[in-house]
């Protein structure tokens, strides 16, 4: 008896291990086991970092996309895999040389150009040419998108490697409670608000071009700053985060002053020129001379201060309204504008980026992948994202829909979003993390020790010298990166 027990137990164990291995311990396998559905012939693997674990709305969004798309495409089974943003590049790069790469994935503008240059993405030009005849709501060609959204998805030679699924822009976010209070006694602040048709002040909306230039911005933030008897800032007109965040804020002010962070080909940094020096000194003066900001604190974010109503204006993203409403349990009395022009600027400006859907070079069913992209990036896909996630879309026709008009009526802070997105310059795009590693600490030092540097006693001889040093180092990153791109190209040609 005992002699048969052991082999039977071993056999049982073997079967269990085989089942677990086959299952990959996935819920999908268990679901399949008990499902009556006929298996679909095409399985489309889609990667994203929008995780339902962090925001349940992403789960609802993916469910809606999957349900609608699979109903329209009965031969395709979408399998979503959520990968954390911080590990995306490593995991994706590993998957692309491994055996289970995704077919389609959302790519941040941080990495898209690099993935293309590594030869990991399939060019989409031929598919876009075929799509040109589709009805407008289903068309995903260039003319259907805001120009500022169609900037990050192509190489210097014009090859298109992605289709934008969102558009993000940096903007100035204003606390309308603080502004309305100050407007009661100040004509200049009152003039920032839009007017109703009868000429009365519309306290729900700011004019898109409310702030005319940097001097105007300085005056307004000074007026909105309230100090205690000992001089400490009780209510700040503006907030600057020196620790890393300050470097991010530098880009839109630079754009507003007519400057560019880098050239389009990714060979040269340009932020150390006159426009950049002026932008940097403008930020430094706001903090140190005008004293309109709360003290630099690493542990307290700008948005925390804004949500606590301690700050009248902060730099945020066009996507940020919904988060603020959620975190403040319903407060939505704020408005967005672009950045006012600096001395060398020509109008309201900002920087924009459009994260995109891309097809991997190793995608096994390009036709199915393209159908998915067409759906997600169509007007219908944009509307779903707007409805569930509250995002504005990168498509032109999105802004003509009733749904968007209704959203603007319900949430007035959305009213300037389209105009903000339209005036966006392209965000820096070449080797962003490596460039940040070189440049951000310099900007951090410039903000933290601005008075010493201006006086010539700081760790840099001047603002100009500091930015030139950062520019040189960024150029080193670009040079090495372009050498690496040449090596990738050579390797691909050899293969």
């Amino acid at each position, binding site marked *: 008896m005992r002699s048969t027990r052991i082999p039977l137990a071993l056999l049982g164990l073997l079967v269990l291990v085989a089942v677990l291995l086959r299952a990959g311990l996935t819920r999908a396998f268990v679901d399949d086991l008990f499902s009556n559905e006929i298996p679909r012939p095409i399985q489309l693997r889609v990667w994203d970092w929008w995780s339902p674990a962090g925001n349940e709305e992403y789960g609802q969004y993916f469910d809606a996309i999957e349900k609608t798309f699979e109903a329209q495409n009965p031969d395709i089974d979408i399998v979503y895999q959520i990968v954390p943003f911080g590990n995306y*590049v*490593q995991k994706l*790069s*590993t998957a*692309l*040389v491994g055996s289970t790469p995704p077919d389609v994935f959302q790519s941040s503008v941080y990495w898209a150009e*690099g993935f293309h240059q*590594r*030869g990991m993405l399939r060019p989409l030009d031929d598919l876009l040419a075929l799509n040109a005849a589709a009805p407008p709501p289903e068309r995903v060609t260039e003319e259907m998108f805001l120009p500022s959204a169609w900037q990050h998805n192509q190489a210097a030679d014009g090859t298109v490697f992605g289709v934008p699924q969102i558009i993000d822009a940096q903007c100035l976010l204003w606390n309308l409670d603080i502004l309305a209070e100050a407007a009661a006694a100040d004509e200049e602040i009152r003039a920032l608000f839009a007017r109703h048709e009868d000429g009365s002040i519309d306290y729900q909306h700011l004019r898109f071009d409310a702030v005319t230039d940097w001097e105007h911005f300085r005056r307004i933030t000074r007026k909105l700053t309230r100090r205690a008897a000992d001089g400490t800032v009780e209510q700040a007109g503006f907030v600057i985060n*020196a*620790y*890393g965040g300050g470097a991010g804020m530098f880009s839109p002010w630079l754009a507003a002053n007519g400057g560019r962070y880098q050239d389009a080909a990714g060979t040269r940094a340009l932020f150390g020129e006159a426009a950049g020096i002026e932008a940097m000194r403008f930020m430094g003066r706001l903090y140190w001379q005008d004293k309109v900001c709360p003290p*630099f*604190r*690493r*542990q*307290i974010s700008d948005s925390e201060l804004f949500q606590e109503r301690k700050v009248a204006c902060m730099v945020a993203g066009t996507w940020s309204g919904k988060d603020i409403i959620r975190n403040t349990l319903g407060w939505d009395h704020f408005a967005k504008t672009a950045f006012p022009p600096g001395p060398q600027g020509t109008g309201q400006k900002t920087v924009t980026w459009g994260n995109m859907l891309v097809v991997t070079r190793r995608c096994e069913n390009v036709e199915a992948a393209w159908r998915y992209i067409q759906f997600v990036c169509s007007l219908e896909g944009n509307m779903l994202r707007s409805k569930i996630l509250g995002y504005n879309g990168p498509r032109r026709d999105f802004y003509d829909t009733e749904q968007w008009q209704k959203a603007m009526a319900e949430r007035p802070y959305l009213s300037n979003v389209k105009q903000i997105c339209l005036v966006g310059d392209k965000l820096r795009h070449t*080797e962003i*993390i*490596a460039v940040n*590693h*070189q440049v*951000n*600490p310099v900007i*951090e*030092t410039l903000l*933290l*020790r601005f008075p010493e540097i201006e006086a010539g006693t700081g*760790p840099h001889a001047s603002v100009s010298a500091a930015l030139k040093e950062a520019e*040189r*180092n960024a150029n*080193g*990153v670009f040079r*090495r*990166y372009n*050498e*690496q791109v040449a*090596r*990738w190209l*050579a*390797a691909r040609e050899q293969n």
Partner: protein
Amino acid sequence: MHGLVPYLYIAPAFAVTIVFSFVSMGISFWASLHHYDAFAGAAEFAGLGNYRRALFADDSYFWLSLKNTAIYSAMSVVGVLLTALPLAILCQKARRYQALFRTLYFLPSITPGVVLALVFYHIFGVWGQLLDNAWTSLPALALLGVWSGAGYNMVIFLAGLTEIPRDFYEAAEIDGAGRWHQFRHITIPLLRNTLVFVMVMTIISSFQVFTSVYIMTQGGPERSTEVIAYTIFINAFAVAGQMGYASALAWLLFAVVFVFVFIQMRVFRSRRIYDE
């Protein structure tokens, strides 16, 4: 055949060590001599170019990060010795609840570094913005390192202390030696090997400090906490095609730690004490 049995027993562990330590070290050294991209697979021989760049290029942060790491390491070694040894002596003297104290002090050592870093990130923020200032941020990180390592080293010291025969102290007491003299002439000399072990391990681990920097400061403010492991990480995983350069940095770090430890071992070489 019998002679082979012991080798067969150690073969699995030996194979794992060979593959995951020495082979990977070999690959890393090979990578350090190439322009290497781990994902694209393309490699081009660079000779000593990566080492030259690390040591002499204008935009290299090797020397700065080495200086920061050395300062961090010095603070950690001093901090650990000044906390773990007194804690061990106090713990040894505790007549009741010794096991409880040992457990409490040991707990930080088994708490994940990320959790500790997040907790201390907020503590330092509340306690006066230690991470906001270039002068205080590195000592603040070292404080976290000492706090999390003290318990583990206390246990090592405690083991060393229990090895010292009581007879020595009794004889010293009869001869009229006070507490300080007993500590100075009995405890410290007989703990020499433990001291060397703790110092070597603390130096090695502090030269590899990464988690707290990554979570709490990202090398800032003003690069004051940019340590060498962080520089290696950024180049290896955040910059395209710089794995070779990052490997060169790692080998330079290995060389520095090796020299440090070698000198330390020579200076504090084990000696026979009091039993000749």
